[in-house]
């Protein structure tokens, strides 16, 4: 569904992505793991067109995304849920969701997507008329995911959704991510929280210093203590 082949990207002069290659197959949850600052977020932003790919190829369903502006990529069916949430704090929950549903602006589909979203995150229904900025951290995270789903994406890019959230909230989110996949949306998940990623993802890419180290199954990661210590900073079995 999504293929990155030898993608290089820069922030100013700094060479952040040094040849990323990975593949996400339809219907999967794939995680992208690694320490802080190795380029995980940049990988997602590059896919979304927020950071230009200097060289390399990004193919989505066989179509190249390189050079497309973010809103075009979004309309192809990809949604990015950024780290630190990026909600519209002065808009109500309902309005936040409406921005997500602005394209395509089809009331029928919007209603259907809204129903789906409230099934995952019932708390949002109670908060509809509150300002986004007044929600708790966990609620804000649910809102950003919900907002992204309002467009009915086929591929969801999640950037550290569990960061800074209480264990109970994390559990809710992980369940929602499983449900989202079950309903047909493919997920590429960037996580620091390796334990959380192991619980939901089908396979795991490990990144270091702008490169992909390899693709591993959950079992392989569990078995390889050296890999975990070196690239993920976790020595204990999870």
């Amino acid at each position, binding site marked *: 569904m999504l293929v990155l082949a030898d993608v290089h990207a820069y922030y100013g002069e700094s060479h952040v992505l040094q040849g990323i290659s990975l593949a996400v197959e339809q219907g999967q949850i794939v995680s992208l793991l690694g320490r802080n600052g190795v380029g995980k977020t940049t990988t997602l932003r590059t896919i*979304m067109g*927020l950071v230009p790919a200097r060289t390399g190829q990004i193919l989505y369903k066989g179509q190249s995304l390189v050079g497309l*502006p*973010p*809103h075009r990529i*979004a*309309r192809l069916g990809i*949604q*990015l849920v*950024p780290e630190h949430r*990026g*909600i*519209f*704090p*002065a*808009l109500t929950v309902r*309005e*936040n969701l*409406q*921005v*997500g549903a*602005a*394209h395509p*602006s089809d009331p029928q589909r919007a209603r259907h997507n809204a129903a789906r979203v409230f099934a995952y995150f019932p708390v949002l229904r109670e908060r509809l008329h509150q300002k986004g*900025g007044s929600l708790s951290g966990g609620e804000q995270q649910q809102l950003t995911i919900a*907002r*992204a789903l309002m*467009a009915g994406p086929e591929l969801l890019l999640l950037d550290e959704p569990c960061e800074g959230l209480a264990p109970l909230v994390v559990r809710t989110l992980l369940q929602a991510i499983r449900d989202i996949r079950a309903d047909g949306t493919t997920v590429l998940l960037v996580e620091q929280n390796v334990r959380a990623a192991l619980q939901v993802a089908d396979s795991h890419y490990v990144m270091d210093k702008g490169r992909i180290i390899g693709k591993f199954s959950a079992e392989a990661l569990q078995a390889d203590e050296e890999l975990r210590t070196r690239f993920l900073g976790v020595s204990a079995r999870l």
Partner: protein
Amino acid sequence: MEAIAVQALQGLTFGTTLFLVAAGLSIIWGLMNILNFTHGTLYALGAYLGLVVFGLTGGNFWAALLAAFVSVAGVGAALEIVALRRLFGRDPLYYFLLTFGLTFVLTEILRLIWGDDFLGLPVPAALEGSLHVGIIFPLYRLFVIGVSGAVALGVWLLLTRTNFGLLLRAGTQNPEMVSVLGTNIQTIYTLGFALGSGLAGLAGVLVAPLTGLSPQMGVDLLLQAFIVVIIGGLGSFRGAAVASLLVGEIYAFGIRIAPSFSMLLIYAAMILVLLIKPSGLFVEGAGREA
């Protein structure tokens, strides 16, 4: 007592038209961080275009208002596409400087076409005369208050009740997220800039019968509109509304008491607000760094 009522209505006339100008300025700042120096010249341009259409249609004032709004909005959109867009992502100071340069250009074009002499736009025949209800007040001024109020209401509905308004407000808070969610933010910028410009053009026509037309007619108003958006908070529609009426009334009454000291008062208020709360008294959402 009568004098006070008349003065208050004068202040209201000034305040409501000032609001149209300031609201446009404020929308553009909030959305794009552009402190648009050309705004006063666009106001003057609206007045001149209104004069032309007024003449062409044999004195149809509504046509003049509409034409000024539409064509100045078009000019605003063109400015955004041709010039301002190229500065995307740079310090807001760049926009300020660029629009300052463009103000020279636009003003000189106005002078080239219409000259430096004051021109007059007649008060529409139906609105001549005064209202006598305890006080005597020119009918046209009431018309100005009414139209400005109606337009302000229309803009408010546009911002709060339509999809475009929603996207515009969302873009004001987090433009990147708007584009990630599938909307071309650039289009929102162009339309927002056009809307703000159009409001200035419309205000130009409304005020022209009261003040006359000159290429510099927008200069003082621009300064006052700057003051309004700073007091009300750059980017806040509500703040612009309250501050416009405030400044309008201060000005109207100040003029009675001590003519040009009223401007001094207003500048002093602006400095005070900038020093104490540079983001303005009514900012919505996240505070902005000075």
